[in-house]
């Protein structure tokens, strides 16, 4: 077996031992990747005294195998290429489905709006007079009805990209943060606003302004800059707002980081209704254990199915 080391070894590393199972299989694999059969065959030939063949001549069997190899490569290539359009098709199919569903959603929401107006009309006709007026006022103040009026628009926008902060002051990044929008909305309420919308998203008592990653979500719907916070309220609202904390803070931030912040009067604003809130009803607890039933009965009146608030 000592010849094999001579025949086979390019790196001059001694080849260990015989051919039997080596516990260090991976080391062996890395050290000597050539199939040992070649060395054995060469050894046999040397023992029989045949010279190793030089040059590039190969036997017909090997040629057949090589042809087969080329065939295999070509088939594999064709196969991979054939699968490609299938994938692209699936993707474009999904894109088309998404677009179709979005269109359906838009249509349905338009229909829902129309139906809601119809319901409002019917309700007003049914209630008549003061009842309907009271309902309208309640809807306007809770954000469930469309409102029109004069007010202010606060416009916030990120600083243009690539612009360095104007000074080294530590006032935060040159982007509008969700907390900025929260502050603006809260101070507008504080200044007497009766209705507020951010980029056309009406705020109600249960609205949320949060961030998810880079995006700002108003009521779980993403809004993108520039952000326009429109508020309808009394004439003195603007003056009061200008003196509020968020206005002062944002002016300072705008000066230092380059993001834009402006407050202007606006006439005849129309703020859309907020989406109908999901009404949640309390359900009587269904308890299987007798002790739970005792507790329930002990607590007096169980909540009525229709009486629960949101």
């Amino acid at each position: 077996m000592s010849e094999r080391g001579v025949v086979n070894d390019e790196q001059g590393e001694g080849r260990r031992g015989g051919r039997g199972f080596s516990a260090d299989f991976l080391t062996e694999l890395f050290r000597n990747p050539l199939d040992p059969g070649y060395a054995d065959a060469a050894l046999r030939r040397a023992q029989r005294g045949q010279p190793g063949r030089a040059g590039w001549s190969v036997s017909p069997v090997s040629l057949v195998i090589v042809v087969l190899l080329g065939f295999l490569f070509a088939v594999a290539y064709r196969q991979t290429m054939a699968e490609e359009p299938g994938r692209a098709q699936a993707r474009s199919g999904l894109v088309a489905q998404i677009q179709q569903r979005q269109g359906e959603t838009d249509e349905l929401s338009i229909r829902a709006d129309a139906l809601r107006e119809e319901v409002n009309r019917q309700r007003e006709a049914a209630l008549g007079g003061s009842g309907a007026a009271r309902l309208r006022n309640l809807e306007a103040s809770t954000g469930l009805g469309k409102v029109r009026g004069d007010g202010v628009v606060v416009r916030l926008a990120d600083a243009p990209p690539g612009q360095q902060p104007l000074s080294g002051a530590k006032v935060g990044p040159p982007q509008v943060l969700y907390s900025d929008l929260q502050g603006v909305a809260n101070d507008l309420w504080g200044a007497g606003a009766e209705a507020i919308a951010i980029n056309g998203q009406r705020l109600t008592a249960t609205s949320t302004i949060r961030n998810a990653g880079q995006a700002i979500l108003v009521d779980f719907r993403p809004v993108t800059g520039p952000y326009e916070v429109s508020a309808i309220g009394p004439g003195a609202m603007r003056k009061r707002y200008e003196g509020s904390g968020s206005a002062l803070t944002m002016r300072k931030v705008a000066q230092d980081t380059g993001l834009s912040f402006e407050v202007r009067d606006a006439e005849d604003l129309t703020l859309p209704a907020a989406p109908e809130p999901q009404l949640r009803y309390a359900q009587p607890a269904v308890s299987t254990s007798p002790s739970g039933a005792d507790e329930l009965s002990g607590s007096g009146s169980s909540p009525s199915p229709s009486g629960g608030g949101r």
Partner: protein
Amino acid sequence: MIAVLALLAGVLLGLWLDPTVPSALQPYLPIAVVAALDAVFGGVRAKLDRIFDDKQFVVSFISNVLVAALIVYLGDQLGVGGQLSTGVVVVLGVRIFGNVAAIRRHLFRA
């Protein structure tokens, strides 16, 4: 030289005939290609080492492809097809790398 021509002929044949692979065999195709590549580079290296042997080449090609396919089949039956395919690719990949390195040393003396 003849071997290269034969390889080209095989490629052309494959493109010309354009056979459809039965879907049952499709998962084995990539593994078969890797196993075949291993046999080819082993053969080329043996050639450069002047210890090439026709029988060894043919047997190693066929057995490589069959064993690789068998392992993948077994893995599929056992529910670890992906992992076993990875294992096959790693082992054959190591061999391919080693043999290509040896070929490179032969050809460029570096």
